[in-house]
Each structure stands twice: as structure tokens, then as C-alpha cells.
């Protein structure tokens, strides 16, 4: 009985420990063009984890990312999350950002 409890405890510890999965954080700023549909299926809870925050207003997005310029919209920021967030791609070309995210999902 005792080894079983220890084994269960180890399984619990392993399952609760941080994973090494790659995590990407995406910020999409809509501006005047409605591009919501194009990003809907790109968020993923599988590896790599892709979290997408889709902002309707530039002012709200600037609150989230004050260190980045958003002079032109729509604009997409793709970050890889390590200890902080590291910018991988900033683009106003929506197709380019979608290609990039699709590559992440298939790689």
C-alpha cells in the first residue's frame, strides 16, 4: 500500500510541475478592419500553446503593450514566452502573421 501512495504522490508532483512546452502569446489589434474570423481557429491549448488576445481598440492594446508602437492597424504581435516575452514577429500583413502561426502549429 505504501509504495502505491508514494507512486501516486510522485505522479501528482510530476503532473503539477511546470511543462517545457513552447508558449506563444499573440496580440491582434483590429483597427478599422474586422479580421476576427481569420484568427479564430489559430489559438491552441496543445503544443505549442498559442494564446491570442484580440483587441478592438488601439488604446486598449496600448495599455497591454505600452512599449510597442501601433501607428498602423491592423497589427499583429507574436511573442515567445520564456522568462519574459520576446517579440518574434510584428507585422501589419495579416496573411504573414497567419502563415507564421500556422507554421508554429504544424512544426
Amino acid at each position, binding site marked *: 500500500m505504501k509504495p502505491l501512495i508514494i507512486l501516486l504522490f510522485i505522479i501528482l508532483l510530476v503532473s503539477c510541475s511546470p511543462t517545457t512546452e513552447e508558449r506563444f502569446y499573440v496580440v491582434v489589434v483590429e483597427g478599422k478592419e474586422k479580421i*476576427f474570423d481569420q484568427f479564430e481557429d489559430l489559438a491552441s491549448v496543445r503544443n505549442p500553446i498559442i494564446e*491570442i488576445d*484580440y483587441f478592438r481598440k488601439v488604446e486598449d492594446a496600448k495599455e497591454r503593450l505600452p512599449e510597442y508602437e501601433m501607428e498602423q492597424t491592423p497589427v499583429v504581435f507574436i511573442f515567445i514566452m520564456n522568462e519574459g516575452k520576446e517579440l518574434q514577429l510584428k507585422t501589419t500583413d495579416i496573411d504573414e502573421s497567419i502563415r507564421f502561426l500556422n507554421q508554429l502549429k504544424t512544426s
Partner: protein
Amino acid sequence: MTVIYDTTFNWNEWFIILTLLTMSVMIWVMPKIFSVTEGIAFFVFGVFAGMLFDHTISVEPWDLYDVNDDSSYQVMDFLSYVMYGPFSYFFAYIYKRLHIQGFFHIGFILVWSLFAFLLEWIAVKIGLFHFDKGYPMYWSIPIYMTTQSLLVIYYHVIRIQRLSNRQSGWNS
């Protein structure tokens, strides 16, 4: 994916708080025609109906619309469901006061559905509902009519229960 429509405390939040406060005060002030248990039952019906429909058609796989500032579930979303409570309470209240019978049921439900539709239109304008994902607003009309018809049935079930309790000498 989280869609962020707005990040400030503005009209949609005030609408929920003011509606909830005003209507709760009205419930308190108006003459009581239901027992406490009945009153709670009619109040909870509205909260349940709002939650049932929002948590069915505004989440995956349909995900037809969003509520309040962003597509995630927030405290304000919960309060917006509580806000439906006074409406179902006053539906039953006015229904009882007006002694609605026969064909007048159709008119009563139509008027309430139009009122609900008007409130929904205001809610869309102030950013409480976001129908950008393709929800046609007129779909709400059959939902209101069905829910209100169910509330009428619910009212009568409670009434029959009350009468049978009284006949058997059990008072709540």
C-alpha cells in the same frame, strides 16, 4: 482566443448596476403579492433562463456572441445574469395583477417580448452584448417568447402546488 472589446468601466457596467439596484428596490417597495418562496422562485427563473441561453449559444461550439468587456467570463457577466431576475419577477407580478386569461396571453407575451427586444437593442448599443460574431438579433424573439411561455406554465405549476398545499392543510 480572448476578444477584448473594452477595458474601461463605462455604460455597460453602469447599466447592469443601475438596472439591478433600481429593480431590486422596486421589488422591495411594491406591495407583496407572492410568498417569499414564490418570489425567490420567480426571481431565480430569470437568472436561470439568462444563464442557460448565454451559456449555450454564446460559448463553443456555437459561440455566437460575447457579453460585456471581453469574451472571458467576468464578475460583471454574472451580475448581468442576476439582472434578469427582477424581470422574470415582474413578469409574474404583472401577470398576476392583470389576471391574464385566454387570448390575452398572446398579447401579454408579445408586449413583454418587444420590451425585452428593446432592452436588448439598448444593451447592444452600450456594449453589454457584442453580436459581431454573426448573431442576428431577431433570433432572440422566439427565445423570449418560448422563455416567457415557460414562465407562464411555471407560474401555474406553482399556483396549483400552492392550492393543493392549502387543501391538504400545509401552509408555506
